[in-house]
């Protein structure tokens, strides 16, 4: 079934074209949603907030983007229980907008890290795990300076109980609590992850495990 996917575009978003390519290759129709404009939730089946350096990552990653006009519509879309995927900077924006719990801090070694990671699938109750099975490992690339997931102990406990931990690192590269690489909200319709599935579609890219997401 061909989906209509909204892909947000902030000043400084870099992975919008990559995400659009990913969805097109899977037979879906992806459209850009400009940060200054609101949109009608009924016009889209799914939303993706791609990676990049929105607003230069200034002040805090995702902080300035989270407070733009388009996010008002994103919030409405979320409240309707429709699926949203935040990738890397997109994950940071969703946390800043409080659509996902916790925050992403600077990597523990204080450096940007680019590399391949083996991830473990912890839960599959969300719209982006239809081809995954619990316990499966997948190989995806990361490229981020602020990927250390933090939440207070109460929040973490709730997340564990409500099966909100989606993906974990086998070799934690950034100090994330509980080795968290990807999470969902309590309703399981909003997902965020630091690795880039749109960069793992073919063997020549280094892995085709992005194929497990759609």
């Amino acid at each position: 079934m061909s989906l209509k996917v909204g892909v947000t575009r902030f000043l400084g978003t870099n992975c919008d074209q990559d995400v659009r390519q990913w969805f097109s290759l899977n037979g879906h129709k992806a459209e850009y949603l400009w940060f200054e404009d609101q949109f009608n939730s009924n016009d889209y089946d799914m939303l993706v907030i791609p990676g990049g350096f929105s607003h230069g990552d200034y002040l805090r990653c995702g902080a300035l983007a989270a407070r733009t006009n388009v996010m008002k519509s994103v919030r409405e879309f979320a409240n309707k229980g429709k699926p949203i995927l935040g990738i890397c900077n997109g994950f940071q924006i969703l946390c800043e907008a409080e659509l996902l719990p916790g925050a992403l801090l600077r990597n523990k070694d204080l450096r940007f890290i680019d590399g391949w990671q083996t991830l473990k699938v912890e839960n599959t109750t969300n719209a982006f795990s239809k081809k995954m099975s619990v316990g499966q490992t997948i190989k995806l690339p990361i490229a981020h300076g602020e990927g250390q997931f933090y939440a207070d102990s109460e929040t973490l406990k709730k997340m564990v109980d409500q099966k909100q931990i989606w993906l974990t690192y086998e070799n934690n590269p950034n100090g994330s609590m509980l080795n968290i690489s990807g999470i969902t909200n309590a309703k399981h319709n909003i997902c965020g992850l630091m690795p880039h599935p749109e960069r793992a579609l073919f063997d020549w890219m280094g892995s085709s495990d992005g194929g497990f997401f759609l």
Partner: protein
Amino acid sequence: MINDLEKKLKTYRLSVEEYEKIKSLLGREPAPIEWPLYSALWSEHCSYKSSKIHLRKFSYRNERTPLMDGENAGVVDLGFDEKIAFKMESHNHPSFIEPVQGAATGVGGILRDIFTMGARPIMSANYLCFGDVDAPRMKDLMKGVVHGISSYGNCVGVPTVNGQTNFHPRYNKNILVNALNVGYFGPGMKMALSNASGPGNYVVYVGAKTGRDGVHGASMASASFDDDSESKKPNVQIGDPFYEKLLIEACLEVLEKNLVVAMQDMGAAGLTSSSFEMASKGQVGLVIDLKKVPLRDSTMSPEDILLSESQERMLLICEPKNFDVLHKTFKKWNLDSAILGEVQAQKKVKLMWGPEVLTDIDPDLIVESAPRYERPYTKWTPKNKVAELTRPTIQFAEILKKALSSSKLNRFTWIYNQYDQRVGAKTATACESAVAFTRLEHSGRGLALAVGCRPDVMEMDAQIGAYDAVYYPAFQMALKGAEVLAVTDCLNFGNPQKNEIMSEFVASVDAIVDASEQLKAPVISGNVSFYNETITENIVSTPAIGLVGLRDTVEDIRPDYFQNPFEMILEVKLNWVESFTWINSLGNKTSSFKSYPEINVPKFIQLCKNLDTEIKAKKIKVSAIKAVGLGGITTTCLKMTTSELGFDLSNDYQGVTAADYFKDTFYSFLITTSELEEVRKFLKSYFNSIPVEILKIGETTQKIIRITSEFQLDFDQFQKQFKQEI
């Protein structure tokens, strides 16, 4: 009066002879505003006055490389309605002063040279030269430069896919930071040129506001560092990659909408160079009111504004009817655009300060009339060439210990994994690969990128080193199945007013010209950085080279690492030049060399290029292939190890002394296979038209590194040292 003149000449870095020339060109004394104009445009960096007569030798072009004289970057037509633009540039002096911003603005500057032509930047690479790791400030400089490249490159959204990091004590006081960028024109994408045209058209300034960044910057790039370096507090140019990203998107959008007549980025000498060069190229005039320039600091004088090197600014020409949409497009991307003036038919650049005319001058009196010096040089004679090589006496343990602790043997993963290598979802290789491959969006072919120039070889002999700067990366590209298409260069040298430096420059240029013509890969763009010296210490002459190439696909690129244990390692060797460069470099000594000039290196490279296709077609079982680098077969095998796989040379390679295991021969490659006889037979037949040696040198192992029956390395300890951060 004389004192005044002397002071002026010193401030504006002009010689007495240049001043006399200016007076005779103008027929009068230069007006106050004309001093900074001449200072900037006649600086070495902008005018190429010491190199121009030699750069003319790079005139070879072919059907893929249209002549685009004087454009910002060179363009290669790839067929299938795809083109690329590419160029390399230096930012050496600013990086030595403030490494993070120096390197960052270097990356920003070369990006602008690419997208100012309408190409979307798709690959970044860098070429770095540092001094001794323990030299003063060096560790901070290294960390700063890498951080600058990474923070700028990652934010702007262009993958950093390739790089080369070199170390030599002669860079202790003058590091080199060269940045390269490749841009893509897909079907229907329009190329923008920089020649102004159309009297009545608007001259429009777009991008960041102008501040005091880098005033006197272009002249700074052309002056050598003296003891005052530490106390100089220049207005460091700050690069903002976020702004650059906005500029890229906005510029490409207005070009797509056909709103632009011409465009030029404001780089070295900012508004001065962009306005005068656009006018001179178009052979038209411009009227510009400097009071209309958007300012960050309202106290700036006209001279400050003209010389400012604030980053992320462009100058463009547009028809008046298109200005409104253009302005709205830039506004959408949060950028300013201001009309500074207009194009006029009369070939004069009129700079105004409100109603006051500061100058009304023919741009060619500055741009075209820049001096062209014939700096004295001597015809090249190799000083280190010998009839027979003497083997240095070394011990395995000692030499490897020295190499591992000195950067001569390091994986540099700690550098590469600070770079975003995969944004764009087109990168097919890891940054630490010798050759980078990106998938071309429309045709799906692989675009190859590699950089070259090995300072230790340059020190041995500038002419051989310059040939090697082109041949070696071309060879590495060929082994991965890519054909070299074009060359860009960044010629980093010391003081051209010294005969020995100029001689190395001319010898290098001549060698690059010859190598590029033989490989049928024209030199289509480039940059010259002179005066890389401190007091009287010059750097090793470093003509850095960038190559682009083409491969049919990005699939099945043969890896650089051992793939399986218990496979055979074969060496295919062409003996053009022999030396002990690597061993000598560890003792800070210059190597001597023996050469066989009758050897046809380009023919070998061409054969290597088709090897990939032949192997596939004949279904030959080959697992890995890698060019042998400095340090010979042993160092190369060490670089091919993984966390699980090692090698054993003891049963196959019989060096006469320890030195033989690290001997440098240009050029050879290693190939691994489980089918020794089949592959040996295939290679012998394939290379039968040239004098190569083909021998089995060893076997891959599981976690063992054995060089001779007496010498073995601790596998885990080696891996740890090899990957450690310097």
